[in-house]
Every structure is written in structure tokens, then in C-alpha cells.
């Protein structure tokens, strides 16, 4: 089952396309990271999946082919929006009660236990909590709904490193205990490296990279060698991004099938997720996509906005 599936999805605001010809399929059972520069369409994609926005060019389904915003989709998807909106004048316990009233399932006991563990007082107004506590409260409310898919839009933007760690620990525990699928967008690449096992990289409203992190990492390497020879090998290898440091050149290359040869005098290193992501972010023209989406998106690598 794909928790989010888009086929030629498009959304424009006025004459600006936030998403265009966007095709992707995020399978269930993953923590999928949605990354991309500002304005690449991350929030738009998540809003469309949550049913908060209506696509300009139809083509998105959730939870195995259901339309976003349909009763089953609303029931099964817990969405924590950017800046974790809560009713600031309501107390924590009121927010619990509110969310319980608005949903079919609500695990009050586990929510309260979780809040007690975090030291969040039930009587305090949501607006008086710290940024980290507000994010944790929003996450607790979302998880208490026992969703099949948890969608988090920039959940860590407002959090300090410790709060980020705690927040992601909660997400990972829910993933392990209840098998909830997670899709989150974030700028914090270092944090994603620890948790994400599926990556979707958006660039200018299109999918640039999509796939399981394990496969992506296995499919790329960093070659280091003399800067003078870099030009020569760049033609033969599919280089995603090249950088120079003094006499050394670093080429982040994608391995296509058998061309895994290392040129003499060069060293090959495995790449990390952050490294890989940064390389693609620096080269919006490069793409690593599974199956049919690659050709189609490559044709439209120039986006007019």
C-alpha cells in the first residue's frame, strides 16, 4: 500500500506552480523524509495529502488509493501542520478532550501518560507551553488518534537539539509500537539521517530523488582523486556533484549497473544521507528516480515559475 501516491499532480497559486507534474509513491511502513529547498513544494504536497488544499491538476491519493479528505483518509491520517497550531487559550486537558471529541479513536490513557512523562502540566494553557512542549503536545494528540499515517510538516523547525531528539524518539517509538507510517518534511538533514529510511527530494515543484535510503546510499559513492583528472572521468561517470578542495577533487557519483570501477589513483567512499541530499540540492538538474517517473520528470527539468 502506498500511503501517499501522486501522479502528474499539479498545484498553482496564481500563476506560480508550487507543484507540477509531480509523481511519487511513498510505500507504507517507512519513515519517509521529504526534503527540498524553500519553496520546492513540500508543504503544498503535504497539504494536498491532508486534504487541506485542492489540487489544480488532480492526481493524489492516500492510504492505498483513497481521495484526500475523505472520511477514511481523515480518520487514518494525523496531520501535524507547520508551527504546530493549537488553540492557545485552551488548556492541555481541554486540547485532549477536544481531540477525543473530534475523532473515532482516542487513546486518552497513553496520551496522558506521555504528557506526564514529558512533564507537561495538564492544566496549563497550550499558549503558555514552550515551543518544544507545544510540538510534543501536537504530536501526542496526533498519535493518540492511532493513525495509520502520521504526517509532520517541518516539525522540528522550532525545536532546540534536545527537543528535536525527544520529538523524534517519540515518533520512532510510535513507529515501532503501532506500525504507523510516517511522512515528514524537514530542513534538519542531520536529524533525518538517524530516522528516515525513505527519501523524497523535491526541487522546484518536482520530485528529484525518491527511494529507500538504503538503496540510494548503496547506489552512490564519493570518489576522491587528483583534481587534474576530474574532468576526464566526469564524462564517463554519472556525476551528481563535483567539488574541489586544493589538489583533490570529490565526485559524488551514481552507480549505474556495472560501471562501479574506481579509476586508478582514486579512492571510493560510501556516502551518508546528508552528503547525498546536499549533492542533489546543489544540482537541481540531477535526478535519481525509480522507474517510469525518471524519464518524464527529466524532460521537464526546466520549471517556469
Amino acid at each position, binding site marked *: *500500500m*502506498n500511503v501517499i*501516491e501522486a501522479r502528474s499532480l499539479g498545484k498553482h497559486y496564481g500563476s506560480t506552480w508550487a507543484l507540477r507534474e509531480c*509523481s*511519487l*509513491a511513498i*510505500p507504507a511502513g517507512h519513515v519517509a523524509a521529504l526534503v527540498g529547498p524553500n519553496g520546492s513544494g513540500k508543504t503544498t504536497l503535504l*497539504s494536498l495529502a*491532508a*486534504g*487541506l488544499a485542492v489540487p489544480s491538476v488532480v492526481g493524489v*491519493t492516500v492510504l*492505498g*488509493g*483513497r481521495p484526500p*479528505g*475523505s*472520511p*477514511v483518509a*481523515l*480518520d487514518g*491520517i*494525523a*496531520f501535524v*501542520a*507547520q*508551527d504546530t*497550531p*493549537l*488553540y*492557545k487559550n*485552551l488548556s492541555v486537558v*481541554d486540547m485532549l*478532550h*477536544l*481531540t477525543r*471529541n*473530534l*475523532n*473515532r*479513536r482516542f487513546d486518552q490513557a497513553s496520551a496522558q501518560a506521555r504528557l506526564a512523562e514529558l512533564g507537561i502540566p495538564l492544566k496549563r494553557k497550550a499558549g503558555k507551553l514552550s515551543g518544544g512542549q507545544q510540538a510534543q503536545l*501536537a504530536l501526542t494528540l496526533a498519535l493518540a*488518534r492511532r493513525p495509520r499515517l502520521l504526517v509532520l510538516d517541518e516539525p522540528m523547525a522550532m525545536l532546540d537539539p534536545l527537543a528535536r531528539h525527544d520529538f523524534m524518539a517519540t515518533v520512532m517509538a510510535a513507529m515501532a509500537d503501532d506500525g504507523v507510517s510516517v511522512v515528514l518534511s524537514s530542513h534538519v538533514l542531520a536529524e533525518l539521517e538517524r530516522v528516515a529510511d525513505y527519501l523524497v527530494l523535491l526541487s522546484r515543484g518536482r520530485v528529484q530523488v525518491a*527511494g*529507500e535510503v538504503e*538503496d*540510494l546510499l548503496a*547506489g552512490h559513492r564519493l570518489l576522491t582523486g587528483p583534481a587534474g583528472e576530474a574532468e576526464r572521468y566526469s564524462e564517463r561517470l554519472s556525476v551528481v556533484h563535483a567539488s574541489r578542495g586544493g589538489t583533490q577533487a570529490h565526485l559524488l557519483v551514481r552507480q549505474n549497473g556495472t560501471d562501479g570501477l574506481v579509476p586508478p589513483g582514486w579512492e571510493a567512499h560510501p556516502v551518508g544521507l546528508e552528503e547525498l541530499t546536499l549533492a542533489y540540492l546543489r544540482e537541481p538538474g540531477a535526478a535519481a*528516480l*525509480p*522507474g*517510469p*517517473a525518471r524519464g518524464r520528470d527529466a524532460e521537464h527539468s526546466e520549471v517556469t515559475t
Partner: protein
Amino acid sequence: MTTLTTRSVPVHLEEDASLQPLPWRRMAWVTWRQHRAALVGLAVLLGALAVYLWLQGRQMHHAYGIAIACHPASSGACVNAINYFQSTYNITARQLTPLLLQAVPALIGAFLGAPMLARELETGTFRYAWTQGFGRWRWTIAKLVSLAVVAAAAAELFSLLFSW
């Protein structure tokens, strides 16, 4: 690499159809909790106005009674009583009443109606409210209808207070 799933996954229609909408009464608590300050304020305003009008009305009836009951009507004392009645209550009846009748619905609108949707959109909380299992249309309808009923009831009470 995983391949993009191109086949359409069968929609589990039976499961979807068996999903009953959440009962409307769930929204009663939600609406009350979110708007109770405005609702209590409205009740207090109504109560204060009722007391004021009742006191005014009693005096007015009293003065009117004197003015009407006065015999003979052309005597100096009676003219005085009628003049007194008119000069005292003309302003109240002719000016204050329409002013209040115009101001009160506007106040209800400002304190009850406007925050309902505008504040949700302004603070971004619609992204919370409209992604809950209750459903955005039902959520909006439930709030609009219940608050409209309260506002209409309040307006009706006002007109009763003025017309007795």
C-alpha cells in the same frame, strides 16, 4: 530501487462505507468550550440589558399610567404629567431603542461570528480542526448552525425585551 507503483490499488469500499460519521453532539462540547467566553458575555449583556429595561419600563409604565389616568386631560397638572412623560422617555424610546437594536446584532457578530472562522484561519488552527476525523464540512456546519441558533435566540430575546 523500488519501482513506482503504477497500478491503482483497489479501494476498500466496504470498509469505507461502514465508517459511520461521528455524532453531531460531539461538536456541542467543542463549540461550547471554544466560544464559552463569548457566549457567557452575551448572556451577561442580555441580563444587564433586561434589568435596565425592566426598571426603565416600570417607571415608564408608571408615568404613562399617571398621564393617561389624569382627569380632566386639559388641566394644568395633566398637561404637566404628559409633558413629563414625553420629555423623559422620548429619548429612550425613539433613540436608544433603535440604537441598541442596531448595535446588539453587530456586537453578537463581532464577538461570536467573526472569531468562528476568521480566527481559525488567522492563527492557522484550521489546519488542526480540518484534519480531524469529524470532517471539515461537518465541523463548519455544526459551528455555524449552533452559533447561528444562539445568535438568533439572543436577538429574539432582545426584541421581546423591547416590545413588552
